[in-house]
């Protein structure tokens, strides 16, 4: 052989082809189908204000879900997110009693979220503890502190300009929360899909040992992911507290499961290694549309949870059942 160098082509499949065959496309079809079904089922569905109202069903959870998606792709999980909301909200409520203004409240909310995330990250990356147990522990601890502070009381009296974050509209039916949700989605999509950091997240999730052996600072990346998850919980706490106008220790109870459901529904592998932000965005809309649609039909919330639970298992089980069937 005279020519010793062989050039290997970069790609066999075009990116467009890849998107067409993806989970996200399937999910998008489901979302569209639900949208159409809803608009036939209820005359109140296709109404700009109703639809705008419906977005509040998922925007706050989705903000956390984006960070959670990265965390789960890296092979970890944070079940304490709802409790971080409770603690951050309590901290903001306490700050209000001390006469702190809106800018200060934002700092308190974000700061509490970051601190909680740092605590989780420290326990997982420094002490090497399994995140599922650690965050079941901090889930009780964070909310527990809220209960110690508040008991059966509630904080109220948030400044009137604080209401903007959860109740304000930027333009016509477009709420501030929805805009924030969209901006955060774009930021996380870029972070995960377009940066070295995102690449490291996938590498760690696919093979933590291999990533470490490739010179990636695995503990540092994971710590940052816990920080981000805490931060986004803080953001969600600000929005939710502003929307409700009060803080009780039971605030956002059970949200961690809905956030994880959203992430898994969005095609993120619960065992880590794969998933995308567009998938989570579509999953957020699917969950929001289902909740809103059933709500219009006067179906109680708990029954919606059956649908969500079945959706969670179904979306994973059906392709596998189909695979078994074909063999």
């Amino acid at each position, binding site marked *: 052989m005279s020519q010793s160098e062989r050039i290997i082509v*970069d790609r066999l499949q075009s990116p467009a082809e890849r998107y067409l065959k993806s989970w996200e496309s399937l999910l998008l079809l489901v979302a569209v189908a639900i949208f159409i079904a809803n608009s036939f089922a209820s005359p109140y569905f296709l109404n700009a204000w109703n639809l705008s109202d419906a977005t509040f069903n998922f925007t706050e959870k989705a903000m956390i879900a984006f960070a959670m998606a990265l965390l789960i792709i890296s092979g970890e999980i944070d079940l304490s997110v709802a409790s971080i909301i409770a603690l951050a909200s309590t901290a903001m409520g306490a700050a209000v009693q001390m006469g702190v203004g809106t800018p200060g409240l934002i700092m308190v909310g974000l700061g509490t979220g970051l601190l909680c995330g740092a605590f989780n990250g420290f326990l997982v990356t420094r002490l090497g503890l399994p995140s599922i147990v650690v965050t079941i522990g901090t889930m009780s601890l964070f909310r527990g502190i809220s209960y110690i502070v508040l008991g059966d009381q509630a904080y109220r009296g948030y400044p009137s300009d604080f209401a903007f974050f959860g109740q304000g509209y930027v333009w016509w039916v477009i709420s501030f929360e929805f805009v924030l949700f969209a901006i955060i989605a774009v930021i996380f999509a870029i972070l995960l899909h377009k940066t070295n950091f995102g690449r490291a997240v996938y590498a760690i999730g696919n093979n933590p040992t291999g990533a470490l052996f490739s*010179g990636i600072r695995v503990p540092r990346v994971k710590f940052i992911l816990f920080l981000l998850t805490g931060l986004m919980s803080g953001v969600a706490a600000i929005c939710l507290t502003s929307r409700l106008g009060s803080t009780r220790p039971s605030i956002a109870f059970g949200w961690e499961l809905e956030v994880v459901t959203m992430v898994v529904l969005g095609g993120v592998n619960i065992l880590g*290694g794969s998933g995308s932000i567009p998938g989570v965005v579509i999953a957020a809309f699917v969950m929001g549309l289902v909740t809103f649609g059933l709500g219009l039909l006067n179906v109680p919330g708990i029954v919606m949870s059956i649908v969500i639970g079945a959706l969670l298992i179904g979306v994973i089980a059906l392709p596998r059942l189909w695979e078994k069937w074909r063999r």
Partner: protein
Amino acid sequence: MQAENHIPTGFQSAPVMALDGITKTFPGVKALSDVALKLYPGEVTALIGENGAGKSTVVKILTGIYQPDGGAIRVDGNPVVFPTAQDAADAGITAIHQETVLFDELSAAENIFLGHAPRGKFGLIDWAEMERRSRAILDSIGAEIDPMAKLRDLGIANKHLVAIARALSIDARVVIMDEPTAALSHKEIHELYELVEKLKSQGKAILFISHKFDEIFRIADRFTVFRDGQFIGDGKISDVTEADLVKMMVGRDVSQIFPDRTPVIGNEVLRVEGYNHPTEFADISFDLKRGEILGFYGLVGAGRSEFMQSLFGITRPASGTATIDGTAAQIRSPADAVASGIVYVPEDRGKQGAITALPIFQNVTLPSLARTSRHGFIQLAEEFKLAREYTSRLDLRAASLDTPVGNLSGGNQQKVVIAKWLATQPKVIILDEPTKGIDIGSKAAVHEFMAELAQQGLAVIMVSSEIPEILGMSDRVIVMREGRIAAKLSGEELTPETLVRNAAGI
């Protein structure tokens, strides 16, 4: 190509177990095609073949882990099927696997008796009896192990003895030994040979898998050779020579040829002083020069990989310093090691070397992302350029650069891992068993490339358990035994005898 060596076997007795036309296919790979194997009572049959010849697949079929796609397994001439490992065990077939298939959290006794524990009243497990019988078996093989000790607290050799004891605890008719001497010391190997003789005298059929020809000629009665998943030949060991077997194994005459090189030794690049670890290694000191290939020889489990991983920042040594180009290197993580110019190609490619689910180009650029990106943002074009450059230098064979690494053959996976590290432009490259599990053709390519790297002034550390490779490639050799340096050899001192003697401690 010459005709296959098929030496007919004289049938004095009927085989207790036989494989007949066994075929096994995995997605994309035909692991076994139409192979035969016969095991006779009271005789040792050596199964010989290169890595990838299908030996381990055969063991898994014999023990019920895999189901064959075609052909028959016969016991006493009657076809049988083993849906699970338990069924194979019930038929009297037992295998001594590597230590990795034991349970760290369970006691030695339970590791020996799991699945067939002695029962007492109400069919409940009788722990006292289990302990008693374990002690008896362990004593019979000369192992000084407390049966109730947790396995994780035992050393590698002792774990291996537990695996042997497990095989003996089943009243087996067929005993499969998969490289049983790999981790054992010289003394322990001799005890194992005695054990094999004892099993033979009890009329058990033994399948012995080994890479060591001296061993095969020492204890085997018969041989069977596989190559690339095909049956090549079998016969009596007394009818063949080592050269015959090698020829059958690789399909051609091989006197392994190593690249001819005149080393150009430069300045000292790495100096390691007093590396110690609580349990893995002690007192490791040496230096390494530019353009040099330094071999690390030793038995499996001598602590070579453990030391290398410590030098690479995976584990923290208790004490010791590494100096690179005259300045002390602070290596606390692999990232630090890469930054100071030390890279490590691990033995375990699938788990440590490559991220098999990710495409080739992402694997190659993973440690070099800082160079191919702009302000932390990925530049795909730059990435493909770098990946293309290094994969073509290594003559990688793949459909495209976005093929997952897991779809490549062992040799090509190894090339991806080496390409990944060369792209970082290192000063010292550590290659841990670089040709293990790679076909002969790729082996020569890796050797050629290693020589080329040294020629270009890279300092190379090569960990290898293959004596020809160590002798053929290294300028100097460090032999390790039980976590310590047993000898530093160069020039005239480099002979197979000195290596073996120092590695085994005789």
